[in-house]
C-alpha cells in the first residue's frame, strides 16, 4: 500500500523543490499567521488533506472505488499556489525600500528555479490552426469526407489521436486506445500499416474485413506489392501522406 501512496506523490511532486517550498511556507504560516480563518484554510486544512492522503486505510478505501492512476488528484486539494503567493507577500511586507525589491526578485527567482516553465514542455508545439490539431489531419479529413455520410479510414500512428477531434464523419478501425500499451488493444491492420515494409496483400485483406474506404500511410515506407492489383486506386498524396481508396466499397458518391 505504501508504494501506491508514495509513487503518486513522487510523480506529482516532480523534483520536489516546489513542494518543499510549500511545506516550508506551511510551517512559516503555522508560526506567524495570526488570522484564525487564514490558519484554518491555509494551514489546518492542507495538513488534514496530507494526513488523509498518507493514511493507508483511507488510500485503500479510495483505491477500492477509483482507478489507481488518479489517486494523486487528492493533492489538488492542497492550495500550493495561493499559500506560496501569500507567504511571498508576507515576507515582502516585512521588508522596506530597496531591500523589498531585492527580496521580491529573489523570491521570484526561487520560484522559477524550483518549478519548470510550462512553455518549455516538450508537449508544447506551435498551433497550426484554431482546432489545435496537425494541419495534415485537417487536409486529409477534408479531402476524404463524403457529404452526408461517414467514411472509415485507417490512419498512421501519429495522426490517430487527432482525426476525430477534427472530423466526426471520419471513423477509424482503431483509435487512440491502440497507442496505450497498458490497455492491451491490438489490431492487425494497425500493425501492418505502421510497419516499415507494407505488405499490400495483407493490408487489403484486413482493411476489407473492417470496411475501410481508405488506407493512409506516411512517406519512407517500402511497399511490397501494388494496391492497384486489388482494385484500390491512389486517391491523393496530401502533406506527405499517401491515400489509397478501395473502389469495391460503396462510399455514397
Amino acid at each position, binding site marked *: 500500500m505504501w508504494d501506491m501512496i508514495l509513487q503518486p506523490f513522487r*510523480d506529482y*511532486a*516532480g*523534483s520536489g523543490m*516546489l*513542494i518543499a517550498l510549500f511545506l516550508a511556507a506551511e510551517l512559516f504560516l503555522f508560526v506567524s499567521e495570526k488570522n*484564525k*480563518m*487564514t490558519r*484554518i*484554510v491555509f494551514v*489546518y*486544512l492542507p495538513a488534514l*488533506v496530507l494526513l*488523509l492522503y498518507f493514511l493507508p486505510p483511507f488510500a485503500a478505501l479510495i483505491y477500492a472505488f477509483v482507478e489507481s492512476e*488518479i489517486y494523486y*488528484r*487528492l493533492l*489538488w486539494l492542497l*492550495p*500550493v*499556489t*495561493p499559500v506560496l*503567493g*501569500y507567504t*511571498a*507577500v508576507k515576507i515582502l511586507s516585512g521588508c522596506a525600500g530597496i531591500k523589498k525589491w531585492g527580496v*521580491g526578485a529573489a523570491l521570484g527567482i526561487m*520560484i*522559477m528555479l*524550483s*518549478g*519548470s*516553465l*510550462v*512553455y518549455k*514542455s516538450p*508537449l*508544447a*508545439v*506551435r*498551433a497550426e490552426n*484554431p*482546432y*489545435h*490539431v496537425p494541419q495534415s489531419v485537417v487536409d486529409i479529413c477534408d479531402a476524404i469526407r463524403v457529404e452526408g455520410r461517414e467514411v472509415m479510414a485507417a490512419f498512421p500512428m501519429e495522426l*490517430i*489521436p487527432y482525426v*476525430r*477531434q*477534427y*472530423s*466526426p464523419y*471520419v*471513423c*477509424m478501425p482503431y*483509435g*487512440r*486506445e491502440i*497507442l496505450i500499451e497498458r490497455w492491451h488493444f491490438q489490431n492487425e491492420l494497425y500493425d501492418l500499416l505502421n510497419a516499415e515494409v507494407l505488405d499490400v496483400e495483407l493490408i487489403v485483406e484486413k482493411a476489407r474485413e473492417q470496411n475501410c474506404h481508405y488506407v493512409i500511410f506516411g512517406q519512407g515506407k517500402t511497399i511490397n506489392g501494388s494496391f492497384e492489383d486489388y482494385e484500390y486506386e491512389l486517391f491523393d498524396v496530401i502533406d506527405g501522406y499517401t491515400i489509397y481508396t478501395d473502389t469495391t466499397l460503396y462510399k455514397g458518391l
Partner: protein
Amino acid sequence: MLILRIISLLFFALALPVGMGAGLTAFLDRREKNIFFMWTAGQLLEMALFQIVAVPVILLQGRLDFLDGRAFTVVTVLFEGLSAVAAMLGTVVWIKKGRGYRPHTVEKIPKTALLWWGTAAVLLLLQLAGVFCLRFMDGDDAYYMSEAVMAQASENMYRHIPYTGMATELDTRHCLAPFPIWIAVLARVSGFHASVIGQVAVPMLLIPLTYAVYGMIGSRLFKGRKDRLPVFMVFVQLLVLWGNYSIYTAETFLMTRTRQGKAALANLIIPALFLLLYLLGERVAENRKIEKSLWLLLAATVTAACLCSTLGGFLTALLTGLFCICVLVVYRKPKFLLPACVCLLPAAIYTGLYLLLQR
C-alpha cells in the same frame, strides 16, 4: 459572420453567467458585490444548471422516443433557455436589490501598486496569447474533444466510442461528468467547431476566471492592505507559469489541458470552494448570519464539480467536510453543520449514481 459568432459566444458564455451571478450576489455582503464575484458565482451556477439538465437527458436517451435523434438539441434548448431566464431574473433582482456596487470613493492607486498591476496584466496577456499560438498535445483530448465534436454533429452523447466513432452502450464511466457536452453546447449556440471552443474559447474564459478567483482570495487575505493584492497576483501567476514541475499539478492542467473538465475542477472549482469556505468561516467566526445565497452557491459549486469530473463530488465533499471539522473544533459552533451537509447532497447523489451504474 465571425463577429456574429464571437458576439453570440460572449453572450452565452459570459453575459448569461454574469446575469445569473448578479442575482445571487445581490443578497450578499457589500464586499462580495463586484463583477468578479458575479462572474464566478454565475459560472458556478451555470455549470451546476447544466449538470442538472444534461445528466437526465444523457441517461434517458435511447429509452424515450421523444429524445431519439435530438437528445443533444434538447439539452441545448433546455439549458440555454433556463440560463436565459435565470440571467434575466438575476439582472432584475440585481437592479431592484443590488445596491452598494459602486464604491463610495475612488481610491488613488499608489505608483508601485500600478507597476505590480501592470506586470500582472502583461503576464495574463502573455498567457492568453499562448492559448492562440501554442497547442499542448494531450492524449486525453482524443476522448474529451472527440466526444464534444461528435455530440455537436450527431446528437448522440456517450453512445459512440469517441476514439473510433463506433456505436456502443452508454459510457457510464464518463457520462455523469459531461463537461465535453457543455463545450459542445457552446459550440452549437455560437456556430464554432467544438474543438475551437475547447482549445481556444474555454481557456480564454477559464484562465482569467481562475485568476479572478485567486484575486478574490487575495482580497480576503489582504483586507485593508489593497496594495499587497497586485504583488500576490504576480506571484500567483509566476507559480502557475512555473508550476509544470510535473504533468500532474493543477497548474499544469490549467495551462495545458484547460479544455478538460479535470482542469476546471482543479483550477476553478477547488479554488472557488476555498474562497467560499473562507467566506462561510468568516461569518461563523463573526457570529453573522450566513446568507441563503451563499449556501446555494456552495451547493452549486459541489454540483459543478460533478460536471467536471466523476471524482469532483468526492473531492469537494471531502474538503468541505474537513473544513467543517476545523471550524467546529476552533469555534465550537455546530449550527452551520446541517446546511453544509445539505449542500453536499449533489455529491452524494452523483457519486451514488456512478457506483450504481458501474455495478
